[in-house]
């Protein structure tokens, strides 16, 4: 009968697996008016959509989104 050696044994797989922690966070895509993150906190004409800050006045809405393609701020007309 074949014998198992120490070298063979030392090469065998034995490792701890990482804990399976399933996460859910508002990481958000960073392009355009990604205001789907509805954690909205409004104050006067300024509204916070998660990591996106919205400032509305005269039918104009300023968006501040982290990593926005034009340097962090974009505008669009809101009605």
């Amino acid at each position, binding site marked *: 009968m074949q014998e*198992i050696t120490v*070298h063979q044994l030392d090469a065998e797989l034995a490792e701890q*697996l*990482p804990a399976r922690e399933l996460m859910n966070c508002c*990481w*958000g895509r960073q392009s355009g008016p990604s205001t789907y993150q509805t*954690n909205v*906190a*409004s*104050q006067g004409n300024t509204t916070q959509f998660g990591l996106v800050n919205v400032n509305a006045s005269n039918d104009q809405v300023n968006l501040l989104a982290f990593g926005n393609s034009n340097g962090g701020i974009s505008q669009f007309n809101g009605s």
Partner: protein
Amino acid sequence: MSSALMTTPQAATTAEEQPLRAPRRTWPQLLEGTALLGRFAGSGLREPPYLVRRHDGQIVQLSPLLYAIASCMDGRQLPDIATAATDLLGLRVSPDLIAHAATQKLAPLGLVAYPDGSEPRLEALNPLLALRFRAGIIPAGAVNAVAGVLRVLFVPGVMVAALGALLTCDVWLATAHGIGAGVRTIIHSPTLGLALFGLLILSMAFHECGHAAACRYGGARPGRIGVGIYLVFPAFYTDVTDSYRLSRGGRLRTDLGGVYFNALVALAAAGAYFATGYEPLLVVTVTQQALLVDQFVPWLRLDGYHIISDLIGVSDLFARIKPVVLSLVPGRPLDRRVAELKPWARAAVSIWVISTVAVLTAALAMIVVSAPGYLRQAWHSLMLQLHGVALGVTTGNVIAVIAGVIGAFMLVLPVAGMTLTYLMLCRRMGASLATRSVRVDLTLASPRPDDAPAPGPAPTVG
């Protein structure tokens, strides 16, 4: 070896827990609370590993040979373990080899004690890009109770009906109704904004209940639900480590349980709209589905990552980034973590690694480039929020104060998170460089190969 294991009743079952015999303090013996779970189902490895759950709930994977040896450590004396392992494997295993396996392989992983009776300090791994600063908010017992009730939502008939109804609602929204009226209402109503914020938090917690319920539906036991910081964002999490024991389908159901519950929230909001006619509810329906889609991103440890991982059958893809990248260098020997993969699994892991490196590098560059502009605008917005808070305090407007504080918090959070992530990255790199430096010192201090004695034959124990 594998075939010998597979024919034994104890190991042949996939992920069925084998209770240990009553403990009698002999050495080596599996520690109390340790459970043999059987073969890892749907593995992408050439030789599928076997799973053992430690008494702290963490999972260890072993080769078939080590698993067979461990399965014999049930309170028998050392020579008896060797005899049993020999019979099980069809290979001669000496008592000295059993002692070596216990001391060098199983004790460091917390499966058996060391010969002197001491036990290793058990810790969960701290993998790359994992959740940080965890805090449990719902204990495992309560999570199991809730999951036990909610698991009925995974009955196939219920799922088909719910998803079909949501699809119908989406078609109606996209082709006939829209959400413009709801968005206008929300922008002009600060109180409604706060209510939606609360609803988002609740739906995130419900998402986690979906993972827990799916885990329970499959036959595994979910752990606690908690909160933590992922990169720079606050996150909920559910500990479903026990779902390693499930089949591939069971693990995928657990991964998808969260987004399925998001879909249920979206459907409930649509149902509430049809009952009341209140337009902002339709915005909730749409935003919940947008959140759902985001979870499928595979390059961060979100649900999409776990789905990919379970489809391939490889447990920690991030740990294989370096070996896979190095394996792409011509002439370099394959790392064990690459060589052990089945050919199709290796191809799939390589595609994931290349896309992940590309995406994360681009994201990092984008953050660096946009950081100055973001910080400038964030500071301006922060001043606006604080001004609003001060105004709210002066006029006694509680809603304005709460909204301002939340707004300010959300502006400060990414900056604080970025700083923390940067510091942790520096710390990890510093530790890595220090370790490498010690290795170099040891190499220089050790005798050169031509000074060393000629190697003898490979030692054989027994």
